[in-house]
Structures are given as C-alpha cells and as structure tokens.
C-alpha cells in the first residue's frame, strides 16, 4: 500500500476585486507521488474552487507553475509530496507566488510583465551570419554547440530571477542567459549590440555571484557559469 501524508498548505491569497491579501490554511491528505499542482486541483475540487493557480503542461516543459514553497522557488508540477516532505523535513508548506511580477489573483502573476526583461534582450538572431555557400544549413560543430547548449534549455520560469540576491535594476539571470546564448551562437553577427546589453548597468555588473540562480534552476542549468564567462570577458 502506498503511504498517505497529512499535509498543511499555507497559501497566499489575493482578491483583485477587494484588493485584500491574506494567508489561507488548507489541510488535506495526499498520496506519496502526487505533485503540488495535483494538490491545488484537489483543493479546488474538494474544498475551495476559488483558489487560483497557474500551470500549463504540468511536466516541467513550459515554466508556468513556478511558485515559492517554503521560500524556495521551484516548479510545482515537479514537486512530489514525498520529495517535498523529505527535502523540507516537514508536512507544513507555505505557498507563495513568484516575486518577479505583480499578482493578478492568489498564485497567478502577470507573467507578461516578467517577460519584459526577456523581450528587452531580443531572444532572436539580430543579424544573421551569411549562409553556407551550398545554400543549406549553417555548419555548427557539436563541440561549439556543446559550449552553450545547456543555456538553450532555459524555459523562462523565472525561478532564478526570484531567487537572485539582486532584485532591482537588473535584467536577471534568465534574461541575461538568453542574451548569452546568442553571444555564443556562431550565427549571430550583432555581437557588439549584445555586449552592450550584457555589460550595461542592468547587466552583469549587477550580479553579486551568489549563484542562487544555479542552485534553484529546475532545469539544473548552471546559469552562474554562463554569467561568470561573461564577467571573465570570454565573449569578444
């Protein structure tokens, strides 16, 4: 038989109609491999349909369900009850929205506001390199791709930006990473424009090397490594 846990969730609530905020306590029983998104659904189904929370793919590919659980930013679709109990050594959890954008209702934030920083760094190729003479694809050696492929795995869940010790006037780890991907991408010619973004007063100078980004990244991308490359002046 599978084990059941008695859980207490202290969830941050916000009602945009009355502009009131409060913390609501929910108690529920759950099996060991239920995920936190399943718990929210269970609360909706059994206790309180008004609790609003965000998710989409629910398997760690889209980065919609990021929240702070006992202070740690993570994807709630990936957090199994069993692992949460083991990791946090408790069966009581505080659940808060990420801090990168204003809250719309309860655990739902205005993601578009958070995305403004990513839009700012222009995730597309600004100026493409000339085509291969054969007219087919640009050649990229697997060795070159390997140096930055980890950074392309970012899903903009904003867990790193929430954990970062610099919260003001900073593009944040994930937006910088999007810029660094194109700096390392041999198909991008507009290196100077990208360097200007990287070393601007909202760029790497604001990073204090706490490495919280790498620590919390749900994709286990070593974001701090890429920012360190930038600080060491590896991009020319």
């Amino acid at each position, binding site marked *: 038989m599978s084990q059941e846990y008695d859980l207490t969730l202290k969830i941050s609530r916000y009602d945009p109609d009355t502009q009131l905020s409060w913390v609501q306590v929910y108690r529920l029983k759950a099996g060991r491999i239920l995920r936190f998104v399943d718990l929210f659904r269970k609360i909706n189904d059994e206790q309180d349909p008004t609790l609003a929370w965000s998710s*989409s*793919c629910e398997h760690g590919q889209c980065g919609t369900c990021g929240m702070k659980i006992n202070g740690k930013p993570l994807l709630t679709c990936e957090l199994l009850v069993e692992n949460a109990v083991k990791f946090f050594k408790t069966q009581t959890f505080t659940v808060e929205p990420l801090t990168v954008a204003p809250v719309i209702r309860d655990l739902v934030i*205005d993601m578009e506001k958070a995305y403004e920083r990513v839009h700012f760094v222009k995730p597309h190729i600004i100026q493409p390199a000339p085509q291969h003479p054969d007219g087919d694809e640009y050649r990229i050696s697997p060795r070159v791709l390997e140096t930055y492929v980890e950074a392309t795995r970012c899903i903009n869940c904003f867990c790193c930006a929430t954990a970062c010790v610099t919260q003001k006037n900073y593009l944040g780890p994930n937006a910088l990473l999007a810029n660094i991907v194109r700096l390392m991408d041999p198909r*991008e010619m507009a290196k100077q424009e990208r360097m200007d973004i990287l070393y601007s007063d909202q760029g790497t100078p604001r990073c204090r090397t706490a490495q919280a980004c790498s620590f919390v990244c749900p994709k286990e991308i070593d974001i701090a490594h890429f920012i360190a490359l930038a600080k060491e002046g590896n991009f020319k």
Partner: protein
Amino acid sequence: MGKKLQIDSILRPEVLVIGAGGAGLRCAVEICERRPGTSIIAVTKVYSPQKSHTAAAQGGMAAVDPKDPVDKIIYHMFDTWKGSDCSSDQNIIKKVCESAWEQILWLERHGMHFSRTEEGRIAKRPFGGHMLNFGKVKAFRACYEADRTGKGIMDTVWAESLKHGVIFLNQSVACELLFRNGRCIGAIVFMEQNGKFLAVLAKATIMATGGKTRMYQVSTNCRQNTGDGLALILQAGLPVMDLEAVQFHPTGIVGPGILASEALRGEGGILRNKDGEPFMERYAPTAKDLAPRDLVSRCIMNEIREGRGCVHPDHKLPHVWLDLRHIPEHVHRTRIQEVCGFFCKFVGVQPQHELCPVTPTAHYQMGGSPTNEFGEVQKDAQEVVPGLYACGEFAAASLHGHNRLGTNSLLELITMGQVVGERVAAYLHDAEAPGDLPQDAGSHVFSQFSRYLASRGKTHYAEIRDALRVLMMEKVGVFRNEKGLAEAIEKLKELKQMARHMKLSSRSLIMNQDLLQFWELDHLLDVSMVIAHCALARKESRGGHYREDYPERSPEFQYHTLAYMTEYGKVTLGRRPIDMSIFEARGEHYEKFGIIERKY
C-alpha cells in the same frame, strides 16, 4: 448578478491569430516577412506564447533533404500515406513533404538550435513508421533538437514574432467568431486577467488553437487543451472533420500521462510485458517497437487485456514496461536526457537501471477544422469561409488522415503555418476592411457567460469532469464498439444536463478559474459528443479509430467524416472525398499510392 456583460473596446488589426503556438506564430511571421508592417494581434490562452504546448513536443520533425543520397521525398510521402491508413489527402502530402527541408532550413536560419552531426550538419534520427525504399528499412529522417524539438520551434517562432512586433493578448480566449455576409471578420475575446471582453475586427482570422484531448483520463495535453477552438467552429455552424481519429500515444508515463517520446524507442528502447518478453516482435516482425503509434497502443492494450500487463502500485493503473537500460550512457546524457528525467521526477524510476512503466495516453487529434490545401476553412466539401484560415493540430487539411506518424505533426505546423501565412499575405492586398461591429456581436458569449454567472446548482464541476474522462477513456478510447459508443452518447447527454446545474463559487470576472472551467467543460462535452457520433458512424477500423465489432478497414468508408452540431447531441454527418492526386497522376511509383495494405 446585475452585472451587465459588454464589449469593453474594439481593436482593429489587419490579422487576428487565435492560438499563438508553433503553427499560429509561424504563420504570423510569414505574413510579416512577406508584408512588413502588417498589424497582427495574437491571442493565447496561456501566460506567455512561449508557454504554448508546442514547446512540449519532444522527438523531431521529419524532412528529407533533396540532396540526400539515400532517403527520398517519395518515401516520406509513401510512409505518410501508408501511416494514415489511406485516408490522408495526397495533395497535402505532396505539398508538405516537398517543402519540408526548406522549412527546416528556415528554422535553422532563424536561430533554432538543432542537434548536429560531426560535420556540423543537422542530425537526424529514426522514428516510427518512417522507412526507406517503401517500407523496407528504418530511415534517419527526423531532424531534432535533443528531446526538446518543439521547444526549439516555439522559441524560434516566438522570438521572430517579437522581432516583427506582433501584439499578444495573453491569458485570453476567443469566445465567439464574428461574421458579416458569410465572411469571418474577427472574434470576441475574453481577457482573463482583467475580466474584459474585447472585439477584435480583422481582415483575416487564423485559428490555430492546437489539440483537445483533455476529455480523456490519461492525456499528454496541457491543462488548456479543452477543445475551445473546435467548439467555436461548431457554434458558428461550420463542420469539423475526422474527429473519430484520436491518436493514443503508446508510451505515456503512468500516472499523469506525460509523454515519453517515441525517440526513446528510436534510440533503441524496447517494450516488454510483465514476463520481460519484447512483445512487439510478435505483432510487427519488421518495424517492431517502431511500428506506428495506433498499432503499438493496441498491442499494449492487448497485452494488458490478456493478463500480461502490470499494475502500478501508486496509480493503480495497468501498464507495460519500456526498457532503456541497454542504451549507452552518452545517449542517455545527450539525446534523451529530458524525457528520462520525467521518469525520475514523476514516478521515481532511474531509466538507466530500472524498467519504466508506460501506458497508452490520449495525445493528438488527426482531425479538426477541415481546410483546403491553402488552409482556408471549409463550410462543406466544396466551399470555403472567406477570411477564415486554420493551421496546425487544430486544422485537418489533411496530412494525417486517421493516423499520424511521429514527427509529422511538427512538420505540419511549420509547413502549413507557412502556407497559410503566404495565402493570408496575398489576401490582405485587396481584402476589404471588416467594417463596423455587427449588431448582434457578443450575443452568444454573453448569454453563455450570464448563464454561468447565474449558476446556483449543487453539482460540482469536478464530478462531471471526472465522469467525462473515465467515460471517454473506456468507451471512446483505444478500443470502441457500437454498444459502448451508444452508451457514451446517452451518458454525454446526461452530463450536459448536469452541467446546467453546477455551482459557481465566485462571480468575479477577473482571473476566475472556476468560471473559465464552466466554459471549458461545455466545450469538452460538445467535442466529446461529436467524437462519439463520428466513431459510431464509421463502422470500420482505420488508423487510430478501432472498432472491435468492425476490426477491418472497409472500402465503403473511404472518405473523410464531416460533422456539424448546432444543437447539443444533434450531429449531422457529411463526407469529404479523399484526395488521391498522386495516384491519379500516374507518375513513377504511383501504384504505391493506391488503396494499399497497411502492414509493418
């Protein structure tokens, strides 16, 4: 209530895109490249277009380089035709397969991070149903970005859309299509984050809302895939096509139903029953584990039915095993890292050392809104609706017929997105302005939402949702029969009645997820009803549609099903002929494109 619902403002872009996933945005970018400065509004139900479900696609995108010394475009065309169980349209097959490589190059030039060969070229892997020499040996045809190909596509078209200044309405849903004299002139959009209704009037409207399989108990689709787009089409009195053709992916991770890509079998993964037997050898001696999805799903269900499956101790769901233990460590690390991580994260299994529990999961709709080869939405087998276009999983042109091959969906959304973009750009040249807001605009959606806001019943939403999901899985799932389908139709009527007596928890319009679920449930029930009717009418087995009482394919049903439903439960059926232009052209190898046997 006393809350009067009204249209808050009117927006007038040239183009409205409903659904900002891979297909919708590929289309938007094509329009911008051909007609720089075109004003485009793209509506998405998710929190940012980058979160679209396209990004969850894993395996790859089939494409034959015309310069390839071994593989040929005609083999790809043949595989698609054979895979569809002779029910895809050959004009579409030709168009898509011939432009495939060009579209791969487009993505590569726009910054997609394809995996590479030692020579620095785009790497390719084998995939189910894709073979050389007309079904002889497996082909290396799927271009991929590790096991996150969909994300690569999504990131690319999203970034390009930003570059071109496409305006996004996030967390918003289109809830009524607008027409004037039969021409589509836009839609009413409900913005969840502020509770406002907008009218978007546009010269051209493109629907690309993706899939819809959330009515099944085990499904790979995201929370938002509730059939809203199809319901909108049905409400407008337009037909949907081949809805009986639902693809069950053989390897869903037991529990949440998360997709474990076919790439795992492409890289050598083997399905085993509880005795450890690699059972696919028995069913498909040539293609084995890489036989098409419908076939593998039925084989798994058959193993389970005959007592050779296992039962998961936590999820209490029957399953078989996927064995990845013999796959080299470097392949685990570089090519299937993401997917193997799912087994670790969601069922606590280490795929390098342990067997992985998998079960068939509702994955894809082969059918959808019928279009011609330019993506123009059809009102019947002959006529199109001016101003209305469709592409991607939402549309059925149809490339897939009754079964889709792996990697052909990403290919379709990119190629058909481009085709529709090209068509729309031409249409915009001399298309008239949509004019004023029609008098009755919003009447449908306001009566719908007023009804939800007035709900004071006792029934819980979850009760109906769960009953629907079990019903669809059991009676309209991998195996179907007349009795079960007839029962399903009766039960769906009951559920629709129950849905009229639900209890709404809050009457706010702002980010009220309970309210939105009412709206979604109506759509799930509408679309489920049409699926069941289409499945009942097709008294044969073809591709993903399998009737236990009619296990063979029948020449009598050599057509596409069209279905209309203006009143719940009253489904009118029609037909659209299957295009056989390759066969009829009598060119080289034409005989391969006749009504052929489907054996792997």
